């Protein structure tokens, strides 16, 4: 499943690159003849211009140091988040238990069950004497030694708060072996003792809908951070990119050949593709790394959470990019941007924090459930509901449809603001002035 997802994400990135290359070839055309060499399809000029603007954004952003360093930074953070927990818990390494004397089947079953109970496995290492077992312990060749089925020896004392795998295993084994000895003392047959010692815990089910697995919740937190970082970064690019075109006056040269809507669409599409490529790279990297190191981050329903996070990253970007583009067209200086940045980021921060709180507590509050249907906050709330198992497919789809419909409305409004504001220079443009007098 995970390999399949990683493959799909990489295939998506490759497909986008090929699409752009094909577009570039298709839109090559004439010189002086006013488009004689262009494709003759009536819409080719429109898609060609949008494609040209988008590919410039892609090229310039990929070329930029900010993007490359930023991507490496995100990958490093993701790698840390996946690898560090596996290093501290080391669930993959089996515990080595030195055994002095005979090991009846009941005792062996008891030790194995104790290891399974704390999420590890055990390898039994026969030791000829207590002295050799102590030497092996001292050298670190074994983690603990069982002497004649009646005593467990460890290298250093185990403190009550010690949560290392060895400490957990030794505690569980000591307790389990104690019970096994008690069964033997109660004169159960060896077969009965073995049956009791190998007992598995009962499955536990709840009356309320499931609250998701631990790994799905962790994944949703990582996803929330990713969505917040990316929406913030790429929307800022949109805002600054539009403002730069306005303040450098390159907008006049551009709008002398392309329509405002084409320029705007190309810009949000280009930066959006950069965002999606980066997010896909991060997700593919995370999947491959988690698979490689056996991280529990992607077990259970976590891949589903990841896919829904990616989907909501796209939907969230699609919604917010227009808002930021319209805002960018109204300013032409850095200090004017600061006045806009705070109110624009408030819904993002609100959605992010409420999402994090829900993922942390493990229960979907009424607020988060409502926010999951509001396009401004749904990119954060909906993936959390998925992680908590608190949403059905139709609710998910309904929220996506609401978001897409709102995006269409917001894009239309933003395009109007952009068209009217982008050529107005000399101070911050006010919305009221924009709609009072036209361009």
């Amino acid at each position, binding site marked *: 499943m995970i390999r399949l997802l990683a493959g799909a994400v990489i295939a998506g990135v490759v497909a986008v690159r090929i699409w752009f290359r094909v577009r570039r070839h298709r839109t090559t055309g004439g*010189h002086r003849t*006013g488009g004689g060499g262009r494709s003759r399809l009536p819409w080719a000029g429109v898609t060609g211009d949008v494609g040209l603007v988008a590919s410039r954004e892609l090229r310039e952003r990929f070329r930029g140091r900010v993007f490359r360093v930023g991507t490496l930074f995100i990958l490093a953070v993701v790698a840390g988040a996946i690898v560090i927990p596996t290093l501290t818990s080391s669930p993959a390494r089996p515990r080595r238990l030195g055994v002095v004397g005979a090991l009846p089947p009941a005792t062996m079953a008891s030790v194995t069950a104790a290891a399974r109970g704390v999420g590890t496995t055990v390898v039994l290492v026969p030791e000829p004497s207590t002295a050799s077992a102590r030497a092996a312990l001292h050298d670190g060749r074994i983690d603990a030694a069982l002497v004649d089925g009646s005593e467990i020896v460890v290298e250093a004392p185990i403190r009550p708060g010690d949560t290392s795998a060895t400490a957990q295993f030794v505690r569980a084994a000591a307790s389990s072996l104690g019970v096994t000895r008690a069964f033997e003392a109660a004169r159960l047959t060896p077969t009965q003792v073995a049956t009791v010692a190998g007992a598995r815990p009962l499955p536990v089910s709840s009356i309320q809908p499931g609250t998701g697995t631990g790994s799905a919740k962790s994944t949703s937190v990582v996803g929330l951070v990713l969505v917040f970082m990316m929406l913030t970064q790429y929307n800022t690019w949109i805002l600054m990119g539009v403002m730069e075109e306005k303040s450098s006056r390159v907008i*006049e040269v*551009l709008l*002398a050949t392309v329509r405002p809507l084409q320029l705007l669409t190309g810009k949000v599409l280009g930066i959006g593709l950069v965002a999606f490529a980066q997010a896909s790279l991060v997700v593919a990297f995370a999947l491959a790394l988690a698979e490689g190191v056996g991280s529990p981050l992607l077990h259970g329903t976590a891949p589903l959470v990841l896919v829904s996070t990616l989907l909501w990253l796209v939907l969230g970007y699609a919604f917010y990019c227009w808002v930021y583009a319209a805002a960018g067209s109204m300013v032409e200086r850095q200090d004017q941007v600061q006045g806009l940045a705070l109110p624009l980021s408030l819904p993002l921060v609100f959605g992010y924090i409420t999402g994090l709180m829900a993922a942390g507590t493990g229960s979907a509050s009424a607020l988060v459930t409502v926010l999951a249907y509001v396009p401004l906050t749904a990119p954060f709330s909906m993936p959390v509901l998925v992680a908590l198992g608190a949403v059905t497919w139709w609710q998910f789809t309904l929220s996506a449809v609401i978001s897409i419909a709102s995006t269409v409305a917001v894009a239309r409004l933003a395009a109007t603001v952009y068209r009217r504001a982008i050529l107005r220079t000399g101070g911050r443009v006010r919305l009221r002035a924009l709609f009072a007098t036209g*361009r």
Partner: protein
Amino acid sequence: MAGHLELENLTRRFGELTALDHLSFSVPAGQVVGFLGPNGAGKTTTMRAIFGLTDLDAGTVRWNGAPVSQAERRRFGYMPEERGLYPGMLVADQLAYLGRLHGMSASAAAGAAGSWLDRLGIADRAGDKVESLSHGNQQRVQLAAALLHGPELLVLDEPLAGLDPPGIDTIGGVLVEEARAGCCVLFSSHQLDQVEDLCESVVIIDHGRLTTEGRVDDLATSGARRLVVRVEGVRDAAWARGVPGITVSEVDGGEVRLVLEESVDVDTVLRAAMAAGRVTTFVLERRRLSEVFREALR
């Protein structure tokens, strides 16, 4: 590729201010036309209107008799007053991008960018960021951006502003060459001497209205005759003030500029000057563009 531009009845109001007031003129193919007017006369608004960068309250911009659309504008070249380039983009990449927006293929745009940078003497800066270039070189890149796609109409807002003499010669030379090749060239400037050198025709506007339009030669030789007279040892124009039908327009270090009425005989003026002393200069002068300009704004 020859074509002509017609502006018909352009009107644009910004609130109380009328920037363009029923402005009409035309730019023929193969000519460099100077577009003159004092600050705030409406030159930039007119040029922006040609490219659809400002809405018009009334009027039409026509190219070869038909209203201008986006397809035609792709074949025009524009250099705005407030220069517009991406500061952080490489010069060659930027030109290639703008060429492609004008409908060129990637290879044609790259080739044209290279040859224009070479022609404008900045081929060695192709791989530099625009922001690292001097003002003059940025202006050259901006001109290359306007010329790259071989435009049929070239509209340049103050292309010579802030340039050193070699820069003016280079850019001026390119404009004349483009016009000779059949391009329609309209450019605005406050440097009237250079306009006189480069342009066949001028259009002068004020308060958004056309005041004067015509060939430079016609405007220079039209109107009253002008004489420049210098009389050795005489610093003022007292000798001329007595002659009927003469107006003294300027006295500059002993050199006197006179405007003659139709009825005045040049010989009469010469005799009056000789009576005042030894005449060292006596030239019938063409009207300078600066004079045409000043008269147009009166």
